[in-house]
């Protein structure tokens, strides 16, 4: 009995954190991810196309699967640049009120990955990657960068492809505006990311906080697939509409089956 009582009252506490104090997020529900064309990633131990594909696959297995959040990370391609600051510059996280010094990683749009060897970004090879929005205006993230450790002693090449996908998914989480979690099981925990298997609640709630579906986005019969109700925000209350139509269609389907069943039973009686 004591065990049962403990079970009922000792529920876990959750807390997610965000990178900005105003919950800044991308304005679009589709964000593309690119890799800078001048990255060589020699020390990181992976080719540019490997890194981009692992990042996209990492996002597909994590953030893109969250049904309650309106965000999809998609593959962009190579981001054409010859700006050496992507490779050697310090990462400067700036909102609209602060400016970054010359020589820092340039402001970007979408998410740009670069292989970087700046000593402030990577004081040792134990820091695998760093990422943050570096182009923020008010509550909107315009662009984020993900920098991979490209120091001579980089450890990144020693990870497997699936471990790299998880590490990159964690960095994409930062790029989308999510901070670290204190939950050891969260993808956004600060370490041992390569051993995670699924997103934890903190991750999910952080993402749905940053990318919520508004009541106007709710689609009719959305629980079945993707039959979109024509979205007209002034029409009525779409949420109530979705609820009503969904419910009515269930009732109609049930009535039909009840009717069919009754007809079938009647026929059998006649025979």
């Amino acid at each position: 009995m004591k065990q049962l009582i403990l079970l009922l009252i000792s529920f876990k506490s959750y807390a997610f954190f965000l990178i900005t104090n105003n919950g800044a997020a991308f304005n679009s529900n589709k964000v593309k991810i690119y890799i800078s064309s001048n990255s060589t990633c020699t020390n990181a131990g992976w080719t540019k196309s490997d890194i981009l594909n692992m990042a996209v696959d990492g996002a597909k297995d994590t953030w893109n699967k969250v049904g309650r959040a309106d965000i999809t990370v998609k593959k962009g391609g190579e981001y054409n640049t010859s700006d050496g600051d992507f490779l050697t510059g310090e990462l400067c996280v700036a909102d609209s009120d602060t400016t970054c010094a010359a020589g820092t990683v340039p402001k970007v749009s979408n998410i740009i990955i670069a292989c970087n060897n700046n000593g402030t970004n990577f004081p040792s090879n134990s820091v695998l990657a760093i990422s943050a929005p570096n182009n923020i205006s008010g509550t909107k993230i315009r662009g984020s960068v993900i920098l991979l450790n490209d120091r001579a002693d980089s450890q990144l090449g020693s990870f497997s492809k699936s471990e790299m996908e998880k590490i990159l998914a964690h960095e994409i989480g930062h790029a989308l505006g999510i901070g670290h979690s204190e939950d050891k099981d969260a993808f956004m925990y600060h370490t041992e990311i390569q051993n995670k298997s699924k997103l934890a609640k903190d991750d999910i709630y952080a993402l749905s906080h940053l990318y919520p579906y508004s009541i106007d986005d709710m689609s009719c019969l959305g629980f079945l697939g993707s039959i979109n109700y024509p979205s007209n925000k002034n029409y009525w209350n779409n949420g109530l509409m979705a609820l009503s139509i969904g419910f009515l269609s269930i009732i109609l389907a049930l009535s039909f089956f009840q009717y069919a069943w009754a007809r079938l039973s009647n026929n059998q009686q006649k025979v």
Partner: protein
Amino acid sequence: MKILILALFCFHLHASSWHDLELGLGQFYELPYQTSNSESQIFQLSPVILSKIAYNLNDSWELNPLFSWVIYQEHENSSSNQNIFIPQLNATYKYNQELHFTIGTSVVIYSTSGDATEEELPNGTGETTYFSPSERRNSYQQNLNLGFNYQFDQYTFNFDSYSYKLFNSELREVSLLFSFTKIFEIN
């Protein structure tokens, strides 16, 4: 369409009556997500408050508007919190006096809030300041409800499932709610 819905409701209101109210407590489980190593591996527990009204359609069917509120405990030093509000509409098929099956639809509202508390958390070789949310934001999702309940005396044991994009293996989300309610007759 609005008129059709109203007409259907009015027709039913005319044809029969609201008959009782149920209030209760339960546990809510969000299945798809990783549970903590330090706590129960199978489920993460969270208390639920719910109220349900029954409205007779005929001898074997009743209509149940239902409201559930899932409360996740606030983190002790961050003041970020999560609540789930679920207004829902179920049709109940009374198989017999005790055993009832339910089907319906709900709007699951994932509500997150906080007061922009700062927190220093480990990051790389040092620490970084992160923030809990500065405002309440709600994410809305329409779910399919399937469940059953078992009535005895003035109490009901309810099992409800909530599924989102049931036929989409990528985005599918399923939650379970086990609850006990007490029936208060109002008519």
